[in-house]
Structure formats: C-alpha cells, structure tokens
C-alpha cells in the first residue's frame, strides 16, 4: 500500500475546517427531509495537506520532465497564466453577472475569438465547447443542420480515415449520423482512390462531410489535402478538421484557407492550458461563412458602438473606461486605452453575448471553460504575431530531430519529414516478444513519461511521440539515449523490459482484476 485512503486516516469528530458561528437566528430544520448518514471522511487540515502532497508525488508531470504523449501536446504550462486565472476579477466573477458588469471578461473572449479565427483562417469562432471532443460534436451537429436546412437531410454519412482519433467516429454516432471509414495508403496518406469511390459512387448523395486530422495522427501532412477537400466538396459534403494537431500548423498554413469549413481547437494542447490530470480542456470551434449562423452559443459580439482599431504597436485595444466605476488598481500604459494615438478619445464599445441566428444550441451551461480562455489569451499575448509562428516551427524542429536520431535504432515507418509528432514501431525483429508496451514501461525507469502507445491503430506496435517546442536539445538527447539503451536491453535482457517498470511507485497492474471485481468506491462510502 502506497498511501492509505483518505477514509482510513480519519478519526470520529475531527474536522479540516474552522467555520464561523451562525450570525442569524436559527430556524428549525425540516426533520422529515433530512439525511441521517453522511459518510464523508473526518480528517484534519494537516492530514489533508499531507495526504494530497503524498499522492501528488506519485504522479509524473510536465513540470518534472519530457512528456512525449503523442496527440496530447504536453507542452509547458506557463505559471503566469495560473496567477492570472486566480485574480478575483476572473475567479470570483459570477457567470450570470449582467453584461455591463462583465465587460472585461467579454472583451477577453472576443479578442480570443478573433485571434483564433485569424490563426486558422476562419470567419467566426465559438469558445463554448468544453473540450476537443465537444468541439467535434458541435462541428458535426452544424454540418448536419446545414444539410437539413438545404433540404438535403438524407446526407447522413461522415467519412473518417482509419487513422482517426476515436473521438471522431464516436462523435458521428452521437450526432445521429453514420461513419464511412476510409483506408490509408502506404505513405500514411489517405487513400484517395477509396475517397473518390465513396464520393463519386452511389453513396454520393448521402455524404454529409468528412472529418480529418491535419497533420494526420501519424504526424504527417496529407500531401493530397487540397484534392481531398475538393473531392468532398464536389460531392456536396463539408470538411471538418480535427485541430488536435494545430501545434504543427500555426503560421504554417491556415486550415480555413485550405478549404476546410469547420475545425476545433484544443486550447489545452496548442495554447498551453494545463491538462489537469485529465481535464479541463477547452474546444473552441471555428467556421467559415457557410456555417457561421450555426455556431453553438453564446458567442461574444459588440452589441453597441464600433470596434476599436486594431493597434499595431504594443498598446493594447483595451479601454480603461470599461466596466464598473472603480478604476483598476494598476493602470499600465498599454491599457490607458481610449486614446487611439491621434489625441481623440473613443467611446468603448459594449460587448455582449449573442446566439447565432440558426445556432445548434448550447453545448454546456454558461459560456464555456472561461478559465481556459483567459489562459489561452495570456499565452497568445506573450508570443504575439512574431512568436506564435515559432511555437510551430520549433515543435516541428524538435519532432524531426527526435525522429532523425531514433531512426538509427527503431523502425520509423514513413520516410518523410514529420509535423509536430511522429510514429515509430515499438518492436524488433531480433528481440522476440518485445512490444511497444514493454518499451513504454521501461521508459518510466529512465525517468520519462512514455509516448502514446498502440495509436494510430494502423501502425503495428505504434509509439506516437510528440516532444513539443518547450524541450531543449539536451532534454531530447537524454530521451534518445534512454530509447537507445532500451533497444539494446531488448536484445540483451528482454526480461528487464517485460518486468518494467521497476522503479515506479507501483509495478504493472492487473487490469483484468479491476474490470472483473469492479471496486469503484471504497467500502466506508457505500450507502448502507
């Protein structure tokens, strides 16, 4: 046992908080409606702190080292963004505050909508989806409604390559539509002959659209992407881009300009918001003019007054007169606003929420994961126009460097430069019965988080590696050394890999037992 359960370290009567006395007259509680039992732990503050600190130490995290989990973009999460998120004006802002009292938040959301639209080449953006998968869902619902409104409700098929993230086909089903899977060719590209067969054959009138990841889940840019887009458009379908891999595209290409109709962004991947041990994410969606009326709402628009000119020099467009009467405690020069430089003072516009005309509806209560919006805002602000392109450039450099180094020891299936990630095969001809899983587990003993394994499904023993731009050459070199050393161990002492990890807090787990016995809740908490 590593750390006892929180239920096992308490004592009856102990409490971890100290609450104020009741300062109003007490009324009688409605006895018939009250519960008798409340099986929560009874633990003191110090015990709680120690418990969670000890638990935290059993985790691997980005703050500790390279986390090359392909398709998840585990880049450094800037600390300043955490400070910003905890400012009272954000953290203690009620979501149903009148718009006049939340102009700061609305301003920020609108700026982020504009910036995301600019980065991807889309007309309009909604920040409301809570995660990438929800962004996908919104996108497919929009495509569905678009066809229905045009009297083509029979279009119920979404083309999905066999290399797709599992969320893609699952999304299609959730939206009440059907998946038509397409194969990939030996170069890792989509098989365009299969695509043409689908789009030009008897299914043509049923094609609602296609979901595709760019660069693909193999980390490869589809060389035929424009042809793919044209083929689907000609069949009357719309193109959805899974933006999970946007870290490879910023200022390299705009998906909207390539012809995509809709995509989602993962603010927790590309724009550095923390992954939080599984979430929260944030899955904004961008669309072209065809789908703009269908965006999930609400979105932020200027509801009164004109837009401020976009400033090119450093002073931001943020007017100090926004919001409530009390001025900010600090008024940095960049925020004095109002003065556009010509000595004229402009009235600040009024920002407000609107539901797009034919909106597919709300994806969640309130207006998206705002805490992630503000982190993404701060992130884009730090990099700015000249820096954002470097994020992509160095992410791609790091991935290609690792790929070049690891090609000497591992099978790298596609002989092309990669985007921000690449796949290699985690097995050896001369080391029987060593699998991607064994290599992954052994990496833990070398102090690294393993890559994504067994995805994409089309590569045997896949190890999908995404280093991100925030790693130094030295970090990458250490990883290469570990991978080389493991390759050598695989031949010399394969048992070492099969038994790994040896130095992690626990050894390999019995997952069959977990699913069979299904202990999902500890005994003291179960209802009596």
């Amino acid at each position: 046992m590593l750390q006892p359960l929180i239920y096992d370290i308490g004592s009856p009567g102990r409490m971890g908080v100290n609450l104020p006395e009741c300062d109003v007259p007490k009324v009688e509680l409605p006895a018939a409606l009250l519960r008798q039992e409340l099986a929560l732990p009874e633990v003191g503050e110090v015990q709680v702190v120690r418990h969670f600190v000890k638990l935290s130490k059993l985790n691997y995290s980005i703050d500790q080292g390279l986390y090359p989990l392909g398709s998840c973009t585990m880049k450094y999460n800037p600390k300043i963004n955490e400070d910003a998120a905890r400012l009272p004006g954000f953290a203690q802002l009620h979501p149903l505050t009148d718009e006049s009292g939340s102009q700061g938040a609305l301003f920020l959301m609108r700026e982020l909508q504009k910036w995301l639209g600019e980065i991807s080449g889309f007309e309009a953006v909604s920040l409301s989806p809570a995660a990438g998968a929800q962004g996908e869902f919104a996108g497919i619902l929009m495509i569905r409604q678009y066809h229905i409104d045009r009297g083509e409700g029979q279009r119920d098929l979404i083309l999905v390559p066999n290399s797709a993230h599992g969320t893609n086909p699952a999304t299609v089903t959730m939206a009440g539509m059907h998946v038509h899977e397409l194969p990939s060719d030996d170069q890792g590209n989509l098989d365009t002959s299969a695509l043409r067969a689908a789009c030009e054959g008897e299914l043509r009138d049923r094609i609602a659209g296609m979901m595709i990841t760019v660069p693909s889940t193999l980390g490869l840019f589809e060389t035929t992407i424009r042809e793919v887009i044209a083929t689907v458009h000609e069949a009357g379908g719309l193109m959805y881009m899974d933006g999970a891999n946007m870290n490879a595209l910023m200022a390299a290409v705009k998906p909207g300009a390539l012809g995509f109709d809709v995509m989602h962004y993962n603010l927790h991947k590309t724009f550095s918001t923390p992954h939080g041990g599984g979430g929260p994410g944030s899955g904004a969606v961008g669309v072209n003019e065809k789908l703009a009326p269908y965006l999930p709402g609400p979105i932020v628009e200027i509801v009164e007054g004109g837009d401020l000119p976009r400033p090119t020099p450093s002073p931001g467009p943020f007017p100090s007169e926004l919001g409530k009467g009390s001025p900010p405690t600090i008024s940095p020069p960049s925020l004095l606003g109002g003065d556009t430089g010509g000595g004229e003072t402009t009235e600040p516009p009024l920002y407000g929420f609107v539901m797009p005309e034919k909106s597919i509806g709300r994806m969640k209560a309130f207006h998206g994961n705002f805490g992630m919006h503000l982190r993404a805002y701060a992130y884009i602000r730090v990099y700015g126009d000249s820096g954002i392109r470097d994020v992509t450039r160095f992410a791609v450099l790091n991935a290609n460097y690792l790929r070049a180094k690891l090609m000497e020891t591992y099978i790298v299936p596609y002989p092309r430069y990669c985007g921000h990630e690449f796949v290699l095969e985690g097995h050896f001809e001369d080391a029987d019965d060593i699998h991607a899983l064994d290599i992954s587990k052994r990496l833990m003993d070398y102090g690294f988080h393993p890559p994504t394994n067994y995805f994409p499904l089309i590569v045997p023993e896949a190890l999908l590696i995404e280093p991100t731009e925030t790693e130094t050459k030295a970090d990458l070199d250490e990883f290469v050394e570990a991978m080389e050393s493991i390759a050598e161990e695989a031949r010399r002492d394969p048992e070492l890999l099969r038994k790994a990890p040896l130095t992690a807090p626990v050894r390999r787990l019995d997952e069959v037992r977990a699913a069979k016995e299904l202990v999902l809740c500890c005994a003291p908490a179960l209802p009596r």
Partner: protein
Amino acid sequence: MSYIPHTAIETEDMLAEIGVESIEELFEAVPATHRFPQLDLPPPMSEMEVAAEMLAISEANDHAQDFAIFRGAGAYHHFIPSVVNHMLLRGEFYTAYTPYQPEISQGTLQATYEYQSMMCALTGMDAANASHYDGATGLAEAVTVALEVARHKRKKVILSHAIHPQYREVVRTYHQGRDIRIIGDRGRGEIVDLMEMLDDNTAMLAVQYPNFFGQIDDLAALADAVHDAGALLVMVANPMALSIFKSPGELGADIVVGEGQPMGVPLGYGGPYLGYFAIRQKYVRRIAGRIIGETRDADGKRAFVMTLRPREQDIKRERATSNICTNQGLMALSASVYMALMGKNGLRQVGELNYYKAHYAANEISRLDGYSVDMSKPFFNEFVVACPRPVVEINEALLREGIIGGYDLGPHYFHLTDRMLLCVTEMNGVEEIDRLVEILRGLA
C-alpha cells in the same frame, strides 16, 4: 523566445542532424500557395506587461470580492478553504494528463477514486465516474444512458420545467440528432403532473433537487411511479444541499448528476466546472467517461487504474455511446480536497449555515410591503421573490449600492415576470443581508 528554450547554436546542430538547412524545409508537404501566411495578431508582450493587462481586464468585472452577491441559479459563491488551491497548484497534479500510464499516475488515480467514493457517499449511489464537463452535460449524458438501458425502444424523456433552463437547452442540443421526444418542461407541471406523463414509451424522468427555484419538491411517490412505468429516475442535485437533505439514493433515484462547482470550485465566470455523475451498480457498465477502479500490482500492492475501458471512444470508436475523452479532472480534485477538508461534520455545518441565512433573508423580505416570498415548499439556499417592479430596475439599484441581486426569472418563465431568484450562502454576513433588505424596502 518566451517558453521556447532553443539557442541559435542548438537550432543549427539540430538542423544539421536532420539534414536540412532551415526549419522551413520541414514544411515542404504544405501546399506552397498556402505556406507561411502572415498572422494579424498583436505584438508580443513581456510577462510584466501581460500580468498588468490581465489584472486590468479582470478589474473591469464586477466580482464577488468587491460586491455582495445574492445570485446563484446554477453557480454558487461558497467558501473555499485555502488548502484547496494549494493542492491544485501542485504541478504534479495540474501538469499531468489522463492517467493512461497507471504506474506513474497513482496520485491522480487515487485522488479520483476517493472523489468517486465521496460522491457515492453524498448521493447514495454505488458508483460515480471521474466527471463530465458540467452539470448540464452530465444530464445530457444521463439521457443517453437511459436510452441505452431501454435499448432505444423507449423514445420519451420527461424533464421537469424546474430543471435549470440552460441544462434543458443542453439536453436538446445533445439529442437533436436522435429520434426521441423531450416533454414536460414547456409548462409549469408539478411532480404529480410529470408522473401522469409516464407510460411504457418513457425512458426516464428527470427532476432537480432542490429544484431551480431552490425548493424541495415532495418526491415521496415519484420513484415508485417512475419504476412502475419501467423508466429511470434521474435527479439533478446540488451537492451542497445533500449535506443536510436526504440523498437521492434514499429517494429512489437511479442516476444522480449535477454541478459540483459548489464544492471547492470558484465562480470563474461559469467554468471550468465539474459535472458529477453517479449511478446504481446495475447500470454501471452503461456509464460514459473515465472510471477508476481498485486493483493490485504485480507485487500484490493495492493500486488504482482506469477500468471498463472498452466502453470508451478510443477503443469502441463509432460504437461508443459518448465521445468524451478529456473531462474536468482537476475540478474533481478540487471537490475531493474540499470534501476531505469539510468532512462529515463541516459539510453539514456549511449546509446548515446556508439554510439558516437563506431563511433569515426570506423571512425578512417577506415582511416588506410589496414583496412576497414563495414559501409554499421547503427550500435550501435559494428562493423566489415577487417584486413590486421589474427585476432589472431592482438589480440596477442594488448594483449602485454594491450588491449583485437575484436572477431575473421572467425571461425564462412567462408566469414569473417580476420574480427574482435570490441566493444566500454562508458567504453572506448578517449585515449584508440586512442591507439588501433595507434597499429592497426603499424600492417598494
């Protein structure tokens, strides 16, 4: 270069290793006509400038540190012990991802297992998942589970009008592609009216507890009626109210969902929040999202792992019932630390404080000329006040006095014009409540 550590020399070395002259060459697969567009974004900023800008933007909002707040309606201003934030800020938690590799993720896994356990204790259910996006999407996912349990042979879903209006909107968004009927919420039906809608085509009936108006409905006969019709009873419960009121399990619920924000998650302009989802054992294999289970490692040591994985989208793909992947893990950790700190006695005390203060405020307001408070049913920390003039006018006057008033029900409920939903929590001191009452008196 901000968070990019490369030096020019390192970059040169790396390019040489790859065998290219420049980074641009690595983008040769991108169509040349569309390669390297200019981006119209603001220029870069230093950390100092960004910090100042974020502060200035944040201060252009009316927040709970500067204003007394009497607004709830799905997002609640509660006390959050300092420890919660300190634990959340541990990089080991917030800079990790989904615990795909359990050997080096036992911290997240055990904390999530403890969260599931505490949610079971609170709701009276047998199992809980690791979270949905928020209360509204939790309800939408509960509809999916109910339809699955009925093998899609039952096509009717009954929602009470006293469920949060936005939650009902989200249910309709999620299920717009399905051949089902959502009824019950476009009137003002009481529980007995909802019970009359039950038939053998009904997959589920959902109520909110306390309901959107803060009230505890009489649910005594509901569960039997729903179960007799062969449907599932879904309850949307405020976890803070469960500190003192009977658990949904005791009331016969099959699925309990709701917004976990009241437990340790700040208002944060509506997100990230925490959709909790708890269920009876017999339906557990229908649940969507991550679930953590107990097991043993190769040495027999107790450990935790994501389980029932074959239900999930990355394995089941188009046959999965939900596409959820990333959830609200860090918010589940907040709730876990919060519930551990509060514990059995603390949480009950907070619940009682809410009850006493809300009742004090309701009683005081009900004595004012021109106002009346709906006390027809027991309530927790929210109640409906009929006002002598439009709610907008009252709220404007309150705002001038530094108070964020109640939520205007008129736009959502045609029969509730000039009614505001007031919320009083442990954060509202008696002076604050008295001041609210005095200002309201002046507006009669």
